[in-house]
């Protein structure tokens, strides 16, 4: 896909997201002006950008929506529930339409008629005054006729900055769009700035245009045609009859032949040759203070004398505080950053060997600074989870509606930040679990009342950070998990033997196994027994964990723990046999030494007495088939994962290590307990423990 089309698509996705968010908020908490405004602006922006790209069908459809929204915004009509539903449908249709248009495909006829029906429905809500005229609008957005005298005429003067073409916009599409919303009467190219051939840079747009444009539109709408290029052009728009602005134009353009050209092109029959000097322009400007009229212009000196930058001071310039950056650029930066961290740890190792205190100091300072930069770069990738959570609202509402349940959906902690990749990859699993909660968790309203609960079920989606991990919880106040049913089902499906004794937590965890669905009837929402295992897989792939607690009759809570970021972790380096391993610092509770007495006290068992508690030990060498090393002392690294605490028996503790995670390669996908590799300062590769899997493997 071409870059600018991609930007267009992203922009549309953003706008559609905003639209949906606002619509759902209306569904939840009633109509408010802000939401209507948001929906209108989103619709309007999509129309505008689609126009710039010449996607006429999108423009037509969005225009119909925009009209109705405008009426709602003006308070001419009341927005009711039906209309919100209609707008949601329109949003979905628009999404589909945008996809189809971008792929330059033909819309299927069923969809096409859906679109037509939606437009009809939109029109049917329009205030009674002039529904007919509006419907004409939709079909063929304004066919301006010369005979109508009251149609406004605008003078548009445009000069392009020399790097205009780098915006990816074409001049052609501007005219296209102008002709869509009105009619270009005269189009006079301005050629004075074209240099001699030898001085001509083919990448620069030397041309300018004086346009006489006929459209019964307010100033703002005409200006919006240029919304996407406003920073890359010198633009003046004023009513054709506005002589003062014309004088200003002629003065500010500093093109000797301009007035003659305009006369020749029959823009005007006569132009008062006002010799507007610089000061005079200033005066004029001053004489028109704060008048919210399109004529108000602010004239700025350009550093080059070739032209003047004319910026309109009304229609506040978009001061954008965010920047859209290609994610691959950040990934590249993170990669380089990782390399620098590795290179620097080599310097640190060397400076320790050389025992040079100054070098030591410098390299330590370097490490601190690198850490700051690394965190800064990582931070770019962090996004608030709230934006993606908001999308779930609709899914929850739709799901509940479809199966006739009454659900209140509450999101907390939307401001929690998480790596964008993680957010994207967690989205589908969360949708799946939310659907499950509503479908299986929350009871039918009648059953809820029988159970002494309010008929409205409640589903909570929470996010918060907890000691270096992010926790996402989905909690419902439904019927909870039935241990016996799960157990029976698991035995029936051969997942466990009928004699197995499992803890409650272990039983609940069975729902994440493939092929276990306790739903009595399979609905199209959930209950096919595929999914929860995929959910677990997805979360584990992100180095996260998933747990479930439940109380029969009271509800269930799913807790997901995720690392804040995927690219690096704080690790602790240990030696086992000939290999160095990294244990994620966040899972380490403490490190102790295994004394001779303790060793003897074990009496061949694999646990020690740690301050009165039994601590199961796991000899990493045995588990991973490592060779025996000669280290006399044994160290125990006590790791915790969820509720489980295990002591890992290792040969040597080597200290903390800032770990840049690299994939080990496809050959090692089946190695349990190891999640990746990291390159040490010495160039050696250390293996990173996946504590959750390691513990699971042992059990």
């Amino acid at each position: 896909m071409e870059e600018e089309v991609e930007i267009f698509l992203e922009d549309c996705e953003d706008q559609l997201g905003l639209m949906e968010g606002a619509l759902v908020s209306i569904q939840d908490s009633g109509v408010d002006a802000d939401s209507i405004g948001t929906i209108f602006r989103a619709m309007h922006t999509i129309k505008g950008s689609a126009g710039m790209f010449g996607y006429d069908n999108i423009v037509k459809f969005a225009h119909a929506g925009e009209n109705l929204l405008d009426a709602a915004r003006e308070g001419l009509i009341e927005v009711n529930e039906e209309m919100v539903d209609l707008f949601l449908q329109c949003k979905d249709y628009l999404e589909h339409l945008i996809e189809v248009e971008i792929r330059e495909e033909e819309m299927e006829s069923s969809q096409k008629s859906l679109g037509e029906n939606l437009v009809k429905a939109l029109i049917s809500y329009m205030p009674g005054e002039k529904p007919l005229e509006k419907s004409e609008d939709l079909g063929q957005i304004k066919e301006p006729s010369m005979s109508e005298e009251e149609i406004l005429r605008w003078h548009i003067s445009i000069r392009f900055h020399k790097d205009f073409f780098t915006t990816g916009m074409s001049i052609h599409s501007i005219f296209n769009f102008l002709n869509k919303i009105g009619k270009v009467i005269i189009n006079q190219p301005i050629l004075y700035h074209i240099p001699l051939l030898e001085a001509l840079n083919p990448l620069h747009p030397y041309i300018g245009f004086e346009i006489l444009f006929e459209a019964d539109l307010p100033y703002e709408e005409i200006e919006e045609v240029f919304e996407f290029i406003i920073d890359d052009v010198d633009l003046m728009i004023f009513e054709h009859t506005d002589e003062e602005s014309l004088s200003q134009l002629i003065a500010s353009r500093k093109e000797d032949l301009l007035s003659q050209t305009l006369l020749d092109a029959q823009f005007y029959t006569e132009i008062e040759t006002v010799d507007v000097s610089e000061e005079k322009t200033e005066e004029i400007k001053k004489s028109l203070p704060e008048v919210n009229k399109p004529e108000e212009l602010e004239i700025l000196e350009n550093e080059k004398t070739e032209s003047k930058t004319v910026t309109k001071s009304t229609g506040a310039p978009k001061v954008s505080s965010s920047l859209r950056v290609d994610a691959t650029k950040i990934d590249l930066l993170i990669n380089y950053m990782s390399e620098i961290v590795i290179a620097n740890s080599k310097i640190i190792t060397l400076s320790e060997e050389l025992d040079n205190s100054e070098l030591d100091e410098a390299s330590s300072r370097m490490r601190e600074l690198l850490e700051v930069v690394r965190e800064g770069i990582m931070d770019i990738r962090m996004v608030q989870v709230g934006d993606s959570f908001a999308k779930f609202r609709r899914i929850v509402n739709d799901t509940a509606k479809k199966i006739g349940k009454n659900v209140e959906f509450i999101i907390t902690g939307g401001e929690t930040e998480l790596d964008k990749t993680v957010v994207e990859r967690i989205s589908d699993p969360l949708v799946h679990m939310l659907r499950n909660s509503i479908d299986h968790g929350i009871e039918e309203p009648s059953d809820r009342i029988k159970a002494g609960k309010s008929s409205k079920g409640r589903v909570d989606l929470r996010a918060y950070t907890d000691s270096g991990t992010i926790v996402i919880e989905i909690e419902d106040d439904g019927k909870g998990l039935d241990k016996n049913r799960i157990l029976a089902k698991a035995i029936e499906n051969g997942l466990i033997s009928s004699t197995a004794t499992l803890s409650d937590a272990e039983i609940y965890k069975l729902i994440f196994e493939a092929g276990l669905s306790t739903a009595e009837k399979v609905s199209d929402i959930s209950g096919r027994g595929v999914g929860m295992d995929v959910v677990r897989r997805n979360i584990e792939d992100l180095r996260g964990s998933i747990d479930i607690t439940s109380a029969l009759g009271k509800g269930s809570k799913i807790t997901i723990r995720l690392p804040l970021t995927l690219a690096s972790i704080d690790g602790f380096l240990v030696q086992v046999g000939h290999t160095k391993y990294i244990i994620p610092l966040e899972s380490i509770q403490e490190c102790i030494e295994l004394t001779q007495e303790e060793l003897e006290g074990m009496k061949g068992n694999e646990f020690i007495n740690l301050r009165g508690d039994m601590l199961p030990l796991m000899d990493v060498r045995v588990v991973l088939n490592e060779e025996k090393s000669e280290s006399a002392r044994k160290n125990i690294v006590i790791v915790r994962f969820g509720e489980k605490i295990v002591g890992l028996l290792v040969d040597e503790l080597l200290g903390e290590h800032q770990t840049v995670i690299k994939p080990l390669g496809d050959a090692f996908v089946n190695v349990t307990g190891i999640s990746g590799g990291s390159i040490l300062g010495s160039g050696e590769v250390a293996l990173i423990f996946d504590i959750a899997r390691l513990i699971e493997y042992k059990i």
Partner: protein
Amino acid sequence: MSSENRDLITYEEDELLTMSDAPQYFFFKSGGDIYAIDAESVSEMVEYQSFTKVPMMPPYVKGVSNIRGEIVTVIDLLIRFGLGETKIGKKTSMVIVDKIALIIDEVHEVNTIASEDIKVSLDFGFKIDQRFIKNMARYNDEYIAILNSAEILNLKEISIVQERA
């Protein structure tokens, strides 16, 4: 001067001819025998370097190594062929194919093989497994195997972990 120039030109033309004509092969020694592998599949050759053992892997998967900041899988080709272990010496090298480093005795050369010298492999009779051989080729008056790297590096097979003893 002018003769030098002409030499240069003919040399370049030669290069072009060989490049466009026949596929290039990378010849190397493993366990004392010469093998060839499609040169296009080889991304680079490096000196032998130490590696980190990864547990639970089949014996021929030696571990992982850091090559220019990337972690690559290290496989001992000789063990893969079932012909013992590669003896590490001065000339021991690693050939990188598909992000996997194959340990070999020494690098021989990169050259073409005339199409009439390429023969269909025998069904049996060669000391390495038939499935590792793509074709046989006459090279310096002896028959050598052109290796089937896809089969040697078959991920399904090499990723099978070994259960604890």
